[in-house]
């Protein structure tokens, strides 16, 4: 099976799994416990926090709050960062931010959505024009999870602060963390990450939070994570996140070059009469969004699945028109026919060129066959 849906989740790293087993079988103690074994784990986690933080920020200016997933981190940023007045976000956000923003609207906070450019990145001028002195929070996705478009969140955060220095700036970095070159600059206050997109395990995410920013917790209880996220720490998941993050950052450049080559190879091999490429060259090479002309994405997904290829799609066999097309893809201004055929192909450093060659053959053959039948 060729797995090209790495933006959905990645195969867990083998070493990560060995680490997990160690923390599940031997070091299973509660890090908040007072006995030596628990305290030793607590000390380990102190170092782990620094190690993870230092991959994209520094532990002098930032704290890390471990959460159950990227979605929880995004929810904490929005629900605990938004105040009365308004918040500004984009039409290109992952549902973790988009749905949370809509819930804030239900709770009486004005939510302003900035439009997208055709590649899925936010239209920065429009975004900035929505910000005023009553804006409490701005949230902009770092790498769009459907098109791979990269928003320059450091620059956007800087421009936001120039308009309203009190507005908090959050970015969902789930598809960027461990994949592209990036360090959190002075103007980003919150940044969400997730473990299972980089070889860790589902069930672990984190919100990186600037030290002088005071927000309330989303989950209350025993006061773990300095009171910012109660609940016994998921030690094995956190250790896996640490290992995966350090591994990804230690060979970031090599991985990036490798994935760029794969991305470029697939672009070349896909029959341009059958596919139009939605992702721009400037997008994260880990994600390639293409549209099969005239064939619904989910039909292709099933058919290539039967032939041994796993990919993602941006359209579903839904009888509900509103749910059929991806909200983000439509927000890019892409017509409904192309939106119907959206496929998301996403790579990992483990993906090989041979796999890409086979994947291209399967995709070309499948779409050609299906197109002939449907026309």
């Amino acid at each position, binding site marked *: 099976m060729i797995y090209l849906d790495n933006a959905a989740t990645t195969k867990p790293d083998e070493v990560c799994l060995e680490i997990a087993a160690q923390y599940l079988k031997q070091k299973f103690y509660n890090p908040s416990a007072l006995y030596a074994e628990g305290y030793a784990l607590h000390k380990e986690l102190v170092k782990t926090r620094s190690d993870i933080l230092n991959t994209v920020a520094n532990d002098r200016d930032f704290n890390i709050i471990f959460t159950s997933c990227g979605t929880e981190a995004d929810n904490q940023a929005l629900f605990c960062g938004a105040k009365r007045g308004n918040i500004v976000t984009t039409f290109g956000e992952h549902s973790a931010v988009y749905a949370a923003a809509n819930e804030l609207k239900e709770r009486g906070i004005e939510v302003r959505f900035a439009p997208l450019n055709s590649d899925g990145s936010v239209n920065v001028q429009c975004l900035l024009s929505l910000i005023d002195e009553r804006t409490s929070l701005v949230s902009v996705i770092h790498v769009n999870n459907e098109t791979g478009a990269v928003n320059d969140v450091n620059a956007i955060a800087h421009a936001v602060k120039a308009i309203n220095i009190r507005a908090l700036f959050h970015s969902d970095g789930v598809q960027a963390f461990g994949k592209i070159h990036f360090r959190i600059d002075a103007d980003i206050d919150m940044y969400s990450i997730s473990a299972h997109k980089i070889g860790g395990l589902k069930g672990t995410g984190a919100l990186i939070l600037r030290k002088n920013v005071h927000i309330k917790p989303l989950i209350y209880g025993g006061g773990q994570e300095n009171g910012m996220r109660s609940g016994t720490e998921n030690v094995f998941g956190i250790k896996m996140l640490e290992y995966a993050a350090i591994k990804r950052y230690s060979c970031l450049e090599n991985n990036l070059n490798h994935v760029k080559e794969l991305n470029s190879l697939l672009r070349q091999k896909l029959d341009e009469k059958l596919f139009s490429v939605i992702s721009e060259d400037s997008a994260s090479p880990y994600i390639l969004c293409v549209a099969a002309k005239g064939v619904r994405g989910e039909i292709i997904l099933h058919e290539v699945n039967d032939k041994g290829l796993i990919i993602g799609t941006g359209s579903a066999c839904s009888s509900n028109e509103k749910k059929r097309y991806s909200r983000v893809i439509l927000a890019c201004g892409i017509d409904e026919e192309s939106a119907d055929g959206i496929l998301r192909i996403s790579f990992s450093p483990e993906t090989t060129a041979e796999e890409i060659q086979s994947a291209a053959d399967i995709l070309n053959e499948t779409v050609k066959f299906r197109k002939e*039948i449907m026309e």
Partner: protein
Amino acid sequence: MESVIIVRYCEIHLKGNNRGYFERIFAENMEKALKGIKHVIRKQSGRYVIEEFDEDNGGQILNKLKNVFGVHTLSIAKKVRSSVDEIFGAVITVAPLSGTFKVETHRADKTFPLNSMQLNAEIGGKLLGHNKNLRVDVHCPQTVVGIDIRENGTALVFGNLIGGVGGMPVGTAGKGMLLISGGIDSPVAGYMMAKRGMKLDCVHFHSYPYTNMQAREKVEELAKVLGEYSCGTKLNIVKVTHIQEEIHKKCNGDFMVTLLRRFMMRIAEKLAIGCGAQCIITGESLGQVASQTIEGMTSSGSVVEKLPVLRPLCGFDKNEIIERSRAMGAFDISIRPYEDCCTVFLPKHPVIRPKINDVLAEEAKLDVEGLISEALSSLEIMKI
């Protein structure tokens, strides 16, 4: 004081010499519904009594029996010896704490010293003395306290009746093959026929890869809901993708649904005959969509050679169907937004009033028997 459940049945009491047959199947269906729960079903004149169950399971038994076709009403009752004091002791446990009531006695044992009116007055008077918040209203009481004096020296005392689903016991009116799509209508159509005593097998047509696994799972769940009423069912799953592709390729696209329905009917008839079903059931409602005109039904029905096609929803409005779908617990599953095979290759302007000659001319372009055999080779059968 033992708790029992009284089960009263519907039309069975109107039956003559074959009443025993209906009662036997009714009792078997109740046994199936209560499988795994400790109980004993005892037949009494004109009704059944469920006894010897654990007190904690009373609510569960009631819920299960409510959905057995043939059940008119149910009551949780207290079983006591036929003495005024013991009967009153039981009445206190079933009587309301406030509001209006009346007592209704039925005496199967005519040797009981008080007649029905006298016992009503005696127990009613004692109850008023026991609870000052109660008042008697013999015309429109909020609660009726029932007392049944049985012939074996026992009495059953119960409060308000709980309504059952009515109908006739499943298995007393033959077997049908239901075309089930995943929408709102077809499960209701199956429910309506099961309500009149018909056993059901179902057939579902899918168009993978145009339809997905979730759509199929939805149909499996709907069949499961239906099976709770129809004493189980079998789900036949047939892939019709190639039939649709052939119609799309060779025929006038406006006839897609009309032609596809004819294939479905033919396949359903073959499956029905194979499993001993005596009719085909569809969820069609006259005029609801383009294929459900009288001409559309004539076209699809005309290929069924040996069996009748029953359309129990034909005269129902959509709202009435939705109401029944909700009541049977299928609605929330039916509205999950997965595409079914009828919407694949859907023409913009489907033929609304197909003329049979036009349909035959379009169909002549296809290898009908070959396509049916191919579709049937994909058959999967699930016991629900």
